[in-house]
Every structure is written in C-alpha cells, then in structure tokens.
C-alpha cells in the first residue's frame, strides 16, 4: 500500500502547485523550444575554449610531452593536478544520485540528473590527462591486460596506476549506464510528446521503446536501487585508488595513510561546489527556480561546509603528523609547502578550502544565491590548488638538493586545461538542450507528498 507521508515540518520540494502535466511541460520546455541568446553565448565561449584545447593536444601529440613544463624533478604537474581535480568534481554526481538515494533523501531528485551528467563529462575530461601524459596515446592499449608479443609480459596488477585504469574505466561505464537507464523513461516522455516525425524517431530510438508497464517499473526501481548500492562503494573506491597513486609512493608529503578519506572528502567538497556553480546558472537560464529551490542550495551548502571542515582537519592533521613523526624529510616537505617558494599556492588553498566554506555557518549566506555562487567558485579554485600543492611542492624539492627546481606551466598545458573546461561546458550545454535536465518522472513520485498543494491541506502544528 502506498502511503503518502506529508511532513508538517519539512518545506515543499517543488514550489508553485504543480500538476504532473505541468512538470512535464516545464522540464521539456528547454528541450523542445529554441535556445536563447544566453545559451548561444555560453556555447560559443565554451566551444572556442574546447578548440584551443584540441589544438594544444594536437601540438602535444606532434611534439611529445616535452612541450609541457615538466622537467626531471617535477615529472607530474598540471596534468595530474587537472586529472584529480576533474575526477573529484565528478564524484558529486554519483554521491547525489547513489548515496542520497540510499539515504532516501528526496531533495536529490531535482538535481540528480544534471549532477550525473556532470559526473560523466568530468570523467571524460579527467581521462584525457593520463591518456595524453603517456606521451604516445596511440599505444595506450598497453595498459590493458591483453595477450601480446612482448614475451608474454602482462600489466602489473600490483601497481596503483593500473588500479586507476580499472577504477576510472569501471566508474565511467557504470555511471554512464546508471545515468542512461534513468533517462530512458524521460526520453520516452519526450518521444510521446514529439510533434515532428524526426524528433519522434530520434527520441523513439533513444528511449529504446520504453512503455512503462508495472513490470518494467518494478524491475527499473530494483535496478536503480542495486546500481545505487554498488555505485556507493565504487565512488569511494575510485578516489581512494586515485589517492593511492600518491599514498603508496615513498615521497614525503605523499605517503600518508590519511590520503584516502581526505581525498574522498575533498572530492565531494569540490564536486558539490561544481554542481552549485552549474545549477545556479542552469536554474536561471532554463527557468527551473521552482524545482531547484533555495532549500536544495542550502542542503548542498551544508554538505560543502561539512566536507570543507573535514578537508581542513586533514590539512592540519598532516601538518601535525609531519612534526609529531619526527621525520625530518616529512617535516621539511610541510614547512616548504607553507613557507617555501610555492607559499602562495598553499595560502590560496587554505583560504579557499578552509576559511570560505565556514561562512556557510550563517544562514543568510548559505541561503543566498549570489554568495553561494561566489563561494562555490572559490572552492573550485581552492581544490585545484590543493592538488597542485600536493603534487608540485612534494616533487620540486627532491632528496638531492642539486636537482631542486621550479615548475612553470607552458602555454600548451594551460591550453589543454582550458580546453577541458571548454569541453565540459560544451557537453553540458548540449545536454541541457537535448535531454531533460530534471528526472521528471522520478520527481512526480514525490510531488504529492511534497508539493505546495499538499502542504496547504494539512494542519500546521503550532
């Protein structure tokens, strides 16, 4: 028996007394209508950035990774920083759709679709960096355990870098399946509303002939639940494995046992910041203020505050342990981080990641759209610097002082980074025009319990 639980305490999730049909109308409007000038403007900018990235990548392929600013001492820098940054951003999508589904957090429903899309696009951007950092991307199939002619030599399954190959590819493909399965019923809605034969054909093909019988829905719900159940440890494992790329090494500043939880918290932190950056713009441009409400923003801000505090504690713990362990190499690595030539990177990281999210303790700030937008940008920048600080400051002061050096990015590296940002936004903008950005059919299941209308009908407790 379905019971409609109406809470007298919680605020409605969907504002404006919507009916089922109105939800369909509102969500399908951006897909069916014409793009406005804001869309075209942002698309042009994103596409231009992407083209710059493609040129930079082409130059890298032609000339090798000598065109990057890497040197013998600093062998990993922007590329891995960007890789970890993008992977971290991707994690919020899975967190919202899988972990919040398991916790039965209904507010996730307005944002899960676009957050999952963001995951997929972010992982695509992330994947580019290791692929091109190999220098000869056409030989990347060597990373797979394939039978070969090199004396039946296999890939090394003891290496965290190979774990990464498996983790990222599993994560990407499972997220893609999870996202697409969720899209099928909504694509069917667009198919059944389509007026032109071409649209009908395209969405008919994309929706795989979804018909929505009770049997289908029963299986569908079970599949989503199980996928959420296995995506949850998956998303935690992915960033744990990413952190093990560093943590299993013997470099001071890298080989710390705190890395896995610290990286996972950081990933959620930066991911939510990116979700907010995107959503605040998307709700305005697509007119979805009644679906992505201040309540959603506030909930996400609370998660940012929590994970930001975890990250802050992790920074301080690292410092404390560097002193407490009595290891002079470890101590030097951290003193150098904070007061060495890269002090400005460390200071930006501390300011953006530890101090700014604490502003969300004030309700006025965490319910303000503008303040949230600004802080979310700060967090994105701060989390980029976190990875840069970890990677470059640990490497540039080697065990041999004669090889101490500095790292400077080249124009090409910057181009690739800007290019991935362009790629990310290009994909997201196309997504917002082609697919429903809100899981509209899922949202209908909570409408009765959480709309304005149902709230008016219940007595309020005094």
């Amino acid at each position, binding site marked *: *028996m*379905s019971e*409609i639980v109406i809470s007298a305490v919680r605020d409605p999730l969907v504002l404006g007394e919507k009916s*089922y*049909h109105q939800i*369909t109308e509102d969500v399908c409007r951006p897909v069916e209508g014409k793009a406005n000038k804001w869309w075209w403007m942002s698309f042009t900018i994103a596409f231009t950035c992407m083209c710059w990235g493609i040129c930079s990548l082409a130059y890298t392929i032609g000339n090798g990774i000598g065109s990057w600013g890497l040197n013998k001492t600093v062998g990993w820098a922007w590329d891995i920083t960007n890789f970890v940054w993008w992977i971290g951003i991707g994690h919020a999508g899975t967190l919202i759709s899988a972990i919040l589904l398991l916790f039965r957090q209904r507010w996730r429903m307005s944002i899960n679709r676009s957050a999952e899309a963001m995951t997929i696009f972010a992982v695509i951007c992330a994947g580019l960096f290791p692929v091109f950092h190999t220098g000869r991307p056409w030989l990347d199939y060597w990373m797979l*355990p394939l039978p070969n002619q090199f*004396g*039946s*030599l*296999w890939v*090394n*399954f*003891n290496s*965290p870098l190979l*774990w990464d190959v*498996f*983790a990222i590819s*599993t994560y990407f*493909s*499972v997220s893609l*399946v999870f996202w697409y*399965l969720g899209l099928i*019923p909504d694509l*069917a*809605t667009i*198919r*059944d*509303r389509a007026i032109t034969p071409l649209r009908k054909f395209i969405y*008919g*093909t994309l*929706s*795989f*002939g*979804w*018909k*929505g*019988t*009770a*049997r*289908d*829905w*029963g*299986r*569908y719900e*079970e*599949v989503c*639940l*199980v*996928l959420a159940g*296995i*995506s949850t*440890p*998956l998303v935690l*494992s992915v960033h744990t*494995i990413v952190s*093990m790329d560093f943590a299993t090494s013997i470099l001071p500043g890298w080989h710390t046992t705190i890395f896995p939880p610290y990286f996972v918290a950081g990933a959620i932190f930066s991911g939510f910041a990116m979700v907010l950056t995107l959503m605040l713009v998307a709700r305005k441009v697509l007119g979805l203020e009644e679906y992505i409400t201040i309540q959603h923003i506030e909930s996400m801000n609370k998660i940012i505050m929590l994970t930001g505090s975890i990250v802050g504690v992790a920074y301080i713990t690292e410092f404390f342990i560097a002193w407490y362990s009595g290891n002079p190499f470890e101590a030097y690595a951290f003193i150098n981080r904070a007061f060495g030539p890269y002090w400005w990177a460390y200071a930006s990281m501390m300011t953006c990641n530890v101090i700014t999210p604490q502003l969300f303790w004030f309700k006025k700030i965490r319910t303000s759209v503008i303040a949230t937008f600004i802080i979310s940008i700060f967090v994105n920048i701060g989390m980029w610097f976190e990875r840069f600080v970890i990677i470059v400051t640990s490497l540039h002061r080697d065990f041999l002082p004669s090889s101490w050096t500095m790292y400077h990015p080249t124009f090409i590296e910057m181009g690739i980074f800007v290019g991935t940002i362009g790629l990310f936004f290009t994909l997201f903008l196309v997504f917002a025009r082609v697919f429903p950005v809100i899981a509209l059919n899922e949202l*209908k*299941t909570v409408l*009765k319990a959480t709309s304005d209308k149902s709230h008016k009908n219940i007595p309020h407790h005094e």
Partner: protein
Amino acid sequence: MSKKYILGVYKDDHDILVGAKKIREMGLKITNVWSPFPIHGIDPVIGIPRTRISMCSFLYGATGTTLALLMFWYMMVHDWHIDIGGKPNFALYKNLPAFIPVTFESTVLCAAHGMAITFLLRSKILPGVTASNPDPRTTDDTFIMQIEVKDTDNLEQIKSALKSTGASEVRV
C-alpha cells in the same frame, strides 16, 4: 471465446490503485498497467511477483570476482612471474592485498552491466523497439490499466466500477 480487453484510464496514481483493488475483488484479471512513474504498492494488487533481478546482479558480481582472481593467478603467478622491487608474485593468496582494488572494480563492473543488460532484455527495451503503450499520455500524466474480460462478464458493471473509482475514460 475471444479475449477482450477493457482499458481504464485514470488521472491519478492513488485512484488507479483503488480501482485496481476493486477490479481484483470482482474476480477479474488485470493484464497490464501503464504509468508515467512507478506506482508503489500496485505489484501485489495486480499480482506481479517481486522481481528477481537483484539475484541476477549478485551472480554477475560473483562471476566478476572469480574472473578477476583467475586473471591475476594466470597473469601474475602462473604465466609470467614479474619480480618488481624484490617483491615477486609467489602465490595468489600472498599477493592478494594488492589485487583487492581491481577485484572489487571487476565485481562492480560485471554486476552493474550484467544487471542492466538483463533488465533491458527482460523488459524488451532495446534500440529500435517500437513502444507499445496504448496512449502517448501514459508517459506524461495518465495511468491506464488493462483488464481481461470474458464474454460472460458484465461489461456495464466493470465500467461503472472503473468510473466510481475515478477513471476519466473507459475504452473497450
């Protein structure tokens, strides 16, 4: 005796649930229900057993684990013994800690994809399939149930039962 179907068209998920109960009490068979979103609690009413797809997923996952372990044993221990950093791969169980991450990923990979493919095949939703929902509005805001009727049944009685529970249309 030919089979006939009556379609009861509803505009609300709660109404169709009440309607379905009433129809079942009359001893009729509901062959199908179409809805824009899952109606919780309708499965036992119309007599659909709980799906076993999660069991499939477990089996796929177990297959993934086994395949991964078999692969490590063959590649790392049996076929080509790599000695990296003075840490050779003597036996599968001795090197197991290093193999945990990929074993886990392989389990998840097989469980997730296996289950998704099973779901698509079982529900016959694949690229190129034409949808068979009776009304395009069932993916928007309309709920339809299909009732199998025999020649001996009283059609008017069924129609009035549907109407009384809030059906907006009844089609034969």
